[in-house]
């Protein structure tokens, strides 16, 4: 599979405290890439570096064979931030239509809302949406420009069991449509069912990168949580 995004030797520190140290990882086209790690491991920092919200102290992020630029990010990457709360004074359709005017190619907003199961809520103010509805709306925003890559930072954070299931079903359907998905999560059981490849970030380094079966074999166990914990405690 073609390599879409590659992070090469990226390091980042905040006031002389290292958050990321020489991170390397590759995301291939069409795969669901799970970024795992404990709280404060550096997952969100890494995502923000990929999206150029933060500048790395060292290293670079590549798109195929060239440097990842602002224009590529604007055209090819959709993003669902952690703890996303859309502006409460706007209606879903208003925000989607407004942002659609900024994109070169877009999916119709009404079609997007139908895709995420919000077609009956188009006229409602976003402030009245439940947490799950907001996350699904965030996914619709992600897909507005019909991106090649969708990055989701903790997409199931704050969702109940049904909301989590809906979110992972949505991710699976995006994969079927040929999208590449990068997501960070804490819920290992669900990561196991959906991720093709994972990277475990621990204390600012990638301690494991590969398929889940490889991690299980490495630690001679069939339980993902156990393998994950062993990997984390290894360092």
């Amino acid at each position, binding site marked *: 599979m073609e390599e879409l995004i590659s992070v090469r030797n990226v390091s980042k520190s905040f006031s002389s405290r290292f958050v990321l140290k020489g991170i390397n990882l590759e995301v291939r086209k069409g795969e669901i890439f799970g970024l795992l790690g404990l709280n404060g491991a550096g997952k969100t920092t890494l995502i923000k570096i990929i999206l150029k*919200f933060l*500048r790395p102290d060292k290293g670079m992020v590549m798109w195929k064979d060239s440097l990842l630029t602002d224009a590529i990010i604007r055209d090819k990457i959709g*993003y669902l*931030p952690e703890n*996303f709360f859309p502006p409460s*004074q706007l209606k879903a359709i*208003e925000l989607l239509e407004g*942002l659609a*005017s900024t994109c070169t190619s877009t999916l119709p907003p009404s079609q997007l809302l139908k895709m995420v199961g919000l077609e009956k809520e188009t006229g409602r103010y976003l402030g009245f949406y439940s947490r799950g509805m907001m996350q699904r709306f965030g996914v619709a925003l992600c897909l507005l*420009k019909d991106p090649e890559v969708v990055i989701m930072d903790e997409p199931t954070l704050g969702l109940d069991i049904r909301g989590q299931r809906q979110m992972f079903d949505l991710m699976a359907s995006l994969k079927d449509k040929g999208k590449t998905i990068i997501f960070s999560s804490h819920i290992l059981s669900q990561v196991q069912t959906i991720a093709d490849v994972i990277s475990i970030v621990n204390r600012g380094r990638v301690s494991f990168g590969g398929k889940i079966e490889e991690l299980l074999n490495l630690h001679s166990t069939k339980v993902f949580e156990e393998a994950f914990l062993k990997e984390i405690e290894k360092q």
Partner: protein
Amino acid sequence: MKKILSLSVLGLKQVRRQKLFVAMVFFFILYLGFCLFLGKLSVAHADKVLRDTGLMGIEISLVILSIFGLSLDFARERSTHTLDIYLLHLGRSAYLATKMLSYILASCLYLVISGLALSIFLLLYRSFTPAIFGALYSLLLKITLVIAFTSLFAVVFSSPLLAMSATLFIYIGAELLPSAWEIMSRTPNVYERGVIYTIYAIFPNFSRLDFRYLAVWGNFPSGTQIVQVTIYTLAYLVCVYLLNTIVLGKKEL
């Protein structure tokens, strides 16, 4: 440009639906009652007092709306990550332009509403003069600069409280500096005079922008005055905007 305009209209909708906007409209209506009281106190010059205090009320409420609204809006967008979404679609400089234009449009809307209310009020008390429209235009120019500074400080400081304080400092400074310069221009100390003049020249020159005193006496500004203050405001706005794009461009979010 089309995307900036389209999102600015969306931003205007958002500002219009905020409680602060509605609160300022109600504040102004109540304030007109206070104007009436002051008009009654000043028997001989009631018409001038009504015009002056009415226009002052519009300015105060607009300053509150733009400084508090924009600073809190920017902080809210950061904490809810809506900023990330906007930046990903627009880029940093276009985002800033959108934000500023949204608030300039909201100020226009507020000026129309409050200007109409003031006109009706002045008509009722036989104090109306079309010259107040000149004053409302100059008010829009002043507020445009206040909005530019608010967005600059909202980007510079992470805390909305600091952003509001810094903008209020600029606003009050710009209002008071002409008097300070008037006093200090007579001092024999060249160094002190130079310092005050430099600050006076750097700060926005609100005293020259303001046509309120002309409107109070029922006078219109001349065409040249209008052109000059418009060019001055646009040039100043571009400078602050460029400075702001540099700051936001370097800022890690």
